[in-house]
């Protein structure tokens, strides 16, 4: 199941490379706009990278269940041996593997543009690795709710972004603390947030999908 979705993301019309290029382009554009002032750039780096990462994930999230709903695959998956909760969880994992993980992997390169010190870059990578699963998980709830909505991609951010603000706050906060050489416990909180999202989101997304199957 996960393997199929990864293959689909990589084939023509897949979203994996699209989200990654969007992320890299947005993050590279910022320094051009705000000017090259190293002491300023390193302080906005984490915030910009985190917001761009969340938006890049949203790009591919709106089609997470919609394609399967439209072509009838969702009916078949729902009748399969896996429960809808299991289907939702594997969709979340494959979305993270094709979006969150590559974003995390390229983030140290983009941090160079912001002259982020190595110690803070390590924290940035750790925060993305811990936090992007929450983006996929909470995004899946929104994707489940908007699976049958045309142009659902426009509504999805309205549902999902407020719920994702803790991830951005903890993620960027951890990097700022590292720049100031203090410890604020943001990373453990981010990990806890991610874990809770991964545990609860499959149930919420599956409940939303059942509504669409009954429509």
């Amino acid at each position, binding site marked *: *199941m996960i393997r*199929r979705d990864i*293959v*689909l993301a990589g*084939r*023509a*019309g*897949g979203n994996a490379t699209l989200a990654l290029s969007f992320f890299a382009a947005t993050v590279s554009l910022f320094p051009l706009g705000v000017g090259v002032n190293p002491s300023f750039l390193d302080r906005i780096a984490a915030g910009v990278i985190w917001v761009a990462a969340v938006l890049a994930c949203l790009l591919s999230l709106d089609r997470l269940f919609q394609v399967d709903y439209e*072509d*009838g*695959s969702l*009916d*078949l998956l*729902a*009748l*399969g*041996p*896996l429960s809808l909760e299991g289907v939702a969880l594997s969709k979340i994992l494959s979305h993270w593997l094709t979006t969150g993980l590559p974003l995390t992997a390229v983030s140290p390169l983009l941090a160079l543009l912001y002259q982020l010190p190595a110690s803070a870059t390590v924290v940035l990578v750790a925060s993305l690795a811990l936090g992007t699963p929450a983006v996929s998980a909470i995004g899946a709830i929104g994707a489940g709710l908007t699976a049958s909505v045309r142009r659902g991609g426009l509504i999805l951010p309205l549902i999902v972004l407020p719920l994702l603000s803790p991830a951005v706050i903890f993620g960027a906060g951890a990097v700022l603390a590292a720049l100031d050489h203090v410890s604020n416990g943001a990373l453990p909180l981010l990990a806890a947030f991610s874990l809770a999202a991964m545990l609860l989101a499959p149930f919420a997304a599956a409940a939303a999908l059942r509504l669409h*199957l*009954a429509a």
Partner: protein
Amino acid sequence: MPELGGLDCHNLALARGRHVVFRELNFEIAAGETLSVEGPNGAGKTSLLRLLAGFLEPLAGTVLVRLKAGPAVADAEERGRLVGWLGHQDGLKPQLTPAETLRFFASYHAKSCDVGAALGDVGLGRVQDLPVSFLSAGQKRRLALARLRLMQRPLWLLDEPLSALDAAGRKLAGELIGAHCAGGGMVIAATHEPLGLDCRRLALGA
């Protein structure tokens, strides 16, 4: 594949919004039988199939699947695990090839499958490594039939199984249905066209 005894629908009623699609619907079929559900557009054929698959909740009434061994199945989700589904949409991914499609569903359902032979049986042997987006509507329908067979579910629910199929394809679909029933399965098909085999009929929306 669990062996079926039969399927009983008692006093079924279904509403969509405030509109009652059908009410007081009673029918029984036994293992090895095919039921052809007929009726004009909008009579509720697809809705009945979605109800039987467990997607829709009936307003009233019960659906009971009797098994040869073990207690009868009344729960909708459990009934769904017995269903082989062929919807009016094929549920195929345009980016995958027919061989990849069958391999995925075989592994999803934990069934072993000779993909080449399964595709050859439905006349798709020559296109098994082309993306599904290159196939015609009839070829996609044949692929959906091949997938239906390899899932090895005892209760087949088919929505317009003959749509887009040519004469040979219709004959093939009829043979697959016949073979499934001969093996003790059950088939309920919503259709406008004769399936070309002996079956019981249920008229909706008369």
